[in-house]
Each structure stands twice: as structure tokens, then as C-alpha cells.
């Protein structure tokens, strides 16, 4: 009988791997709070859980249940995947399966990559997580491969090469699983690369399609690049896109232009610093919105696109919220890319005089005009942006977007760029690239913002910038971590800090929550690393020494912490 069932399952094309889950499971990830199956806790990437067992009234009783050592001193930015009592986490060189009840290891899959690889990784030797489907776990390797691992045994099932470190590419993102393809992007915007997005067949790793973000000769958009500049024009795709199954559109962000010095690539430079709405079957771009045409400031707009339905000007809109690195909070119509809102959310911004709502284009400020003429300037926000890679969350309960945000300027002097293998291709004078902090002000704020105005209903300042994601819950809480090690819970309504726990190293990870046997747990990675830790102590800056001192005291050491209420 069993044989017959198995046979029928195979004939029907159903997976027979133990612990398998389906596309429908992924689609329902938001509703099924006993698992976390997708990056962003749902294809819409709201990073919101309706769970309310842990809430503003009792979060003070939150205690650690277990700590799992990753045996790794690199930065830990990985979001866990949780399925049927097993947690899957990644580091730059390993994937771990952990029994959620006990915190014990089930299997570990170690990855080897060439020791030369870190030469072309600008912003931290990290990995941001895995994706799963039908008993397969998908992840990328730092040296440019996409691999599938059995969720049951940890064995590698297939490996496909996406990019080469010899060309300046690396990979750090979590793949996106859609019904049509497993989708991945690349890092390398500072190393003379040309960004692209790939589709892979989940069962075999067969390459289905590639979409270069920078159009080649003969393709629409190539005319926005002078000469051969398109070949090394950047536009990396290093953060996972979101997906709307009803519209069948993937929303993928694209990064900075290369070199940073934009005078060497005059033109809009499609499709740098954009949100691309794409078909997952082919990679076809259905619409695009470009935030900073000809961007000179490293304003990658790879960060999450949050898909929510909002009432705007009396009309229900299928919206897309993007807290942009360029300092503006955007709301687009995700059916067609129409610009609905663009409001400044940082205090200090001098690169533009606003966004022209008719054209959707930023208006160059006098400062930017001076820089384009070759002058040295201090630009706000600096290259770290108003917000960097760390994902924001959205609570339908409060209607607020919760994001760690930055108030950091940067010295900027354009010089002639030099394309040298294995080195930065930016075309600015690095000795002038100091960070600027305003005297007497914080330079990092957790903000609860109205997406339609960009205004913060509340904000909490920090001495060392937060570099991790946020998560909002139905319990009226916002979770995030500090690089000084504290994992914290805030009241989602007013920003009051309700709880914190020192995790030992700095937090730059992405919290998740879920239930096991009806009990709510919260998990986050601890382990300092990433771009701020790399560059803030290195380049220093004005009003920065105290920050550097506090930051450099934090010790590395990767682990995962899981919390629950004290019984």
C-alpha cells in the first residue's frame, strides 16, 4: 500500500522528501505563524508577524532559551528559516540545521571558497540567509555559486556557477523562490561589474534566464550610457526581491552606478538605483522606477520593497514602500510604478532639493552641482545612505514603517577612476572620504514612520549606528538589535524601550518570530561585522572618535539566540 502511495505521489509530481513544503506554503507564510519560510517573513517582506503571545505587557519576562555557536567570527546578517521544528541558518562558509526545541545541531554543510574572494567583497564577509522548497534549501556562496542542499541530510544536491570573482562579483543574498524560478542577484558594485539577476530551476539548478540590469548595445536603455561605460557600470542586485503572486511580479532593487564618480558615465544610467518589476518566468522588466538617475553617491536602492495595500488620497492602492538609501521614503503603485509619495525621512539631506513629483526625478542641489564641477563637498546622507541594507518592517496594526536610519555625512571629492582587478573602482579620493556626524546629535535612529509623509511618529537615538533589521509584531512590539550587542523590544506605538538582552557580540542580523507547539519564540543572530564595522573605524571622521572607540570594543563571535517568555 505504502509503495502504491509513494508511486502515486511520484506520478503526480509531488515531492516525497521528508519535511518538504510547497509553493502554497511559501505563499501562506504570513498566515502560518508556526513557520518562517521566506526572507522578510512573507513574499511581501513586511517583516510583520501577527503573533501576540509576547506583547507590550509581558515582554519584560522574555528570556533566552538557547544560544547556538556558529564557530565563526565574521558578520552575521542571516535571517533564519524555520520549518517543522527545524531552523536553517547560514554563515559565509556554512549552513546549519538546528533543532528549535533544543538548540542542538542536526547537520552542518561547510562551504569552501578561494581565499582570494574577500578581495572583492566590500562590505562584510556575510551571508543573508537561505530559501527552501520541496525539501531543498537554496543559498549562494561568496564566490558566486548557487547551491541546493537537502533539508533532511545537509548534502549538496546541485551547484551552479552564477558569477566569477575574477570579474569582481560576489554573492551574499538569500535567494527568492517563486513558482517559476529560484531567483538570485549579485554583489560587486564597487569592483567594475555589470549587475544581473538570474532564474534557476529548483530541482536541477538549470539556468533558466539572466537579465542584465544594465542593457547591452541594441537594448532599450543602453543609450543612457556613454561609450563602453555600460560594461562596468555597477547596478548590483545584492538584496532579495519581494513577490506579488496575484500580479505575478517580482520587485527587485538595484544598486549604485560604477564608478561612483558619475561624470565618467554621463546620462541616467538605466537601471542603476531602481526598483525593477519583473516577470519571474523570464526576467522581463515590466516597469521600473529609478530613484537617483546618474547617482554619484553610492545610493544603492537594493533594499526591501514592502508590498502592502494602502488607502492613498481616498483610493485603495496596491502599494510598494521603499525606504530609500537616498534619504527619501517612497510609495509607488506596484501595478505600474506610478510615484505616489516621496518624502524626506532623514533630518540631514543636502544632495537634492526634493523630488519632482511629475517626473519622479530628484532636483540636484547646489552642493551636488558643485561636486559635479569637481569640487570637494560633504554630502548628506553619505555613502551609507539614510538607510543601508538592513530591512525595515511594516505593521498593519499601527500603519507605521519601522526602520533603523542614519544621519551620517561623508566627504566626497571626485577623481579619475582606475579599473584595477581586485580593487575599488569608485573614482573618489578615499583620503577625503571621512564620515561626518553632527555635534551633539545622534547619528542613528530607530524610527516609526508614516509611509505617506515620511514623518516619524517616534524615534529613538543610538550612540553606535544600528545595522540590523527590524521586526514588528501583533503584540505591539518592534524588535531590533544594536551593534553594541543589545537585542531590544520597543513599544510599536510610542518607541518606549520595554526590554533588552546583551547577546555578547554586535547584532547586524534579522529577527524572526514563530511558534513551536503553540509557544512563541523570537530568534536573532549576534556577530558583529558588515560595512559600518569595516569602514567607520577605518576612515574615521568628524565627531566620530567616541563612536569608533565604542564600536571597536565590541568583540566578534557569531551565534544565534532564541528567546521565549519565562513560564
Amino acid at each position, binding site marked *: 500500500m505504502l509503495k502504491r502511495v509513494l508511486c502515486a505521489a511520484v506520478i503526480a509530481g509531488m515531492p516525497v522528501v521528508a519535511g518538504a513544503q510547497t509553493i502554497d506554503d511559501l505563499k501562506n507564510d504570513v498566515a502560518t505563524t508556526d513557520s518562517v519560510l521566506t526572507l522578510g517573513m512573507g513574499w511581501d517582506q513586511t517583516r510583520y508577524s501577527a503573533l501576540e503571545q509576547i506583547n507590550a505587557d509581558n515582554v519584560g519576562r522574555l528570556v533566552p532559551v538557547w544560544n547556538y555557536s556558529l564557530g565563526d*567570527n565574521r558578520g552575521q546578517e542571516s535571517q533564519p528559516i524555520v520549518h517543522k521544528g527545524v531552523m536553517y541558518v547560514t554563515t559565509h562558509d556554512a549552513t546549519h540545521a538546528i533543532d528549535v526545541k533544543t538548540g542542538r545541531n542536526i547537520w552542518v554543510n561547510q562551504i569552501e571558497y578561494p*581565499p582570494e*574572494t574577500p578581495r572583492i567583497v*566590500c562590505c562584510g564577509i556575510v551571508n543573508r540567509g537561505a530559501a527552501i522548497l520541496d525539501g531543498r534549501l537554496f543559498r549562494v556562496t561568496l564566490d558566486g555559486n548557487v547551491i541546493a542542499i537537502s533539508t533532511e541530510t545537509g548534502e549538496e544536491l546541485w551547484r551552479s556557477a552564477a558569477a566569477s570573482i575574477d570579474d569582481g562579483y560576489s554573492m551574499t543574498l538569500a535567494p527568492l523562490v517563486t513558482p517559476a524560478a529560484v531567483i538570485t542577484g549579485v554583489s560587486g558594485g564597487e569592483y567594475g561589474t555589470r549587475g544581473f539577476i538570474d532564474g534557476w530551476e529548483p530541482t536541477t539548478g538549470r539556468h533558466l534566464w539572466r537579465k542584465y540590469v544594465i542593457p547591452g548595445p541594441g537594448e532599450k536603455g543602453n543609450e543612457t550610457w556613454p561609450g563602453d561605460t555600460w560594461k562596468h557600470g555597477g547596478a548590483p542586485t545584492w538584496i532579495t526581491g519581494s513577490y506579488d503572486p496575484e500580479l505575478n511580479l517580482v520587485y527587485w532593487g538595484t544598486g549604485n552606478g560604477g564608478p561612483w564618480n558619475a561624470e565618467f558615465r554621463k546620462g541616467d544610467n538605466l537601471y542603476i538605483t531602481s526598483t525593477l518589476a519583473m516577470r519571474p518566468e523570464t526576467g522581463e522588466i515590466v516597469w521600473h522606477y529609478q530613484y537617483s538617475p546618474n547617482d554619484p553617491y553610492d545610493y544603492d536602492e537594493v533594499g526591501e520593497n514592502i508590498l502592502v495595500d494602502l488607502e492613498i488620497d481616498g483610493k485603495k492602492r496596491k502599494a510598494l514602500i521603499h525606504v530609500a538609501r537616498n534619504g527619501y521614503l517612497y510609495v509607488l503603485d506596484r501595478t505600474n510604478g506610478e510615484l505616489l509619495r516621496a518624502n524626506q525621512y532623514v533630518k540631514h539631506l543636502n544632495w537634492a532639493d526634493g523630488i519632482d513629483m511629475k517626473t519622479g526625478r530628484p532636483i540636484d542641489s547646489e552642493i551636488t552641482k558643485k561636486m559635479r564641477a569637481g569640487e570637494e563637498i560633504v554630502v548628506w546622507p553619505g555613502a551609507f545612505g539614510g538607510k543601508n541594507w538592513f530591512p525595515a518592517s511594516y505593521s498593519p496594526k499601527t500603519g507605521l514603517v519601522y526602520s533603523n536610519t542614519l544621519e551620517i555625512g561623508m566627504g566626497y571629492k571626485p577623481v579619475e577612476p582606475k579599473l584595477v582587478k581586485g580593487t575599488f573602482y569608485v573614482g573618489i579620493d*578615499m583620503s577625503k572620504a571621512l564620515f561626518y556626524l553632527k555635534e551633539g546629535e545622534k547619528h542613528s535612529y530607530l524610527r516609526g514612520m508614516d509611509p505617506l509623509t515620511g514623518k516619524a511618529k517616534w524615534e529613538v537615538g543610538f550612540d553606535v549606528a544600528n545595522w540590523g533589521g527590524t521586526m514588528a509584531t501583533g503584540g505591539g512590539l518592534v524588535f531590533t538589535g544594536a551593534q553594541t550587542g543589545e537585542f531590544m523590544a520597543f513599544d510599536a506605538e510610542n518607541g518606549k524601550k520595554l526590554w533588552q538582552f546583551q547577546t555578547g557580540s554586535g547584532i547586524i542580523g534579522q529577527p524572526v518570530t514563530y511558534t513551536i507547539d503553540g509557544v512563541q519564540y523570537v530568534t536573532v543572530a549576534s556577530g558583529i561585522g558588515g560595512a559600518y564595522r*569595516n569602514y567607520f*573605524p577605518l576612515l574615521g571622521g568628524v565627531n566620530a572618535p567616541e563612536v*569608533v572607540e565604542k564600536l571597536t570594543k565590541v568583540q566578534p563571535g557569531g551565534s544565534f539566540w532564541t528567546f521565549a517568555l519565562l513560564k
Partner: protein
Amino acid sequence: MSARWINRLCLAGPLLAVMALLAPASAAGSAETGRELYNTYCVICHGPNMVNSGARAFDLRKFPLGARSRFIKSVKDGKKGRNEMPPWGDILTKEELDHLWAYTKTRGKL
């Protein structure tokens, strides 16, 4: 000149010759060229003028000045450990390594 002195000269001759051969190898590096190479390949981890807190990469200002071969080996082959460093032996030539060593010896104060 006594036979003893002649003997001494005969012994010293080859030694001096060897030293003459060795000297250019360690002195051939140009600190100025080294600085240019440093600003291309090394600055992004080790910092402008070698100034960095030691949080991301080894503070080169503390590198022992008598440890040339260790320096060359570290840059060529990379380093494991807390401040892991990738190898550069496939990109940097022997001469370029000498220039980098010459610059490293300035402690970034060129």
C-alpha cells in the same frame, strides 16, 4: 699586507659580494611606489596612511621592522585568524612586494 690580512680579504670578498647582491633586493623597494601600490590595493582595509583601529585589519604600524620575509609571505599567501587577509601573490609581483615593504617601513609617514 700580511698573509693574514690577505686571507681575511679573500674570505670577506665573497661575503661582501653576497651582501652587495642581497642589499639591492631589500633596498630596491621604493617607498614612493609602495605608497601608490598601497593606496590601490591595501588602503581599503589597512586605512589611509596606515591608520586604522585594528578592528578590520592588522595595524601595519605595529609590524616588526625586521620581519621582511614574514611581511612578503603574508601579503603573497594571505593570513588566517582573527584579522584574516586574502592572498595577493597572483596579482603583485616580487618587485611590487619590495616596494610595499619599503612603504610599510615608513609607518605610513611618507
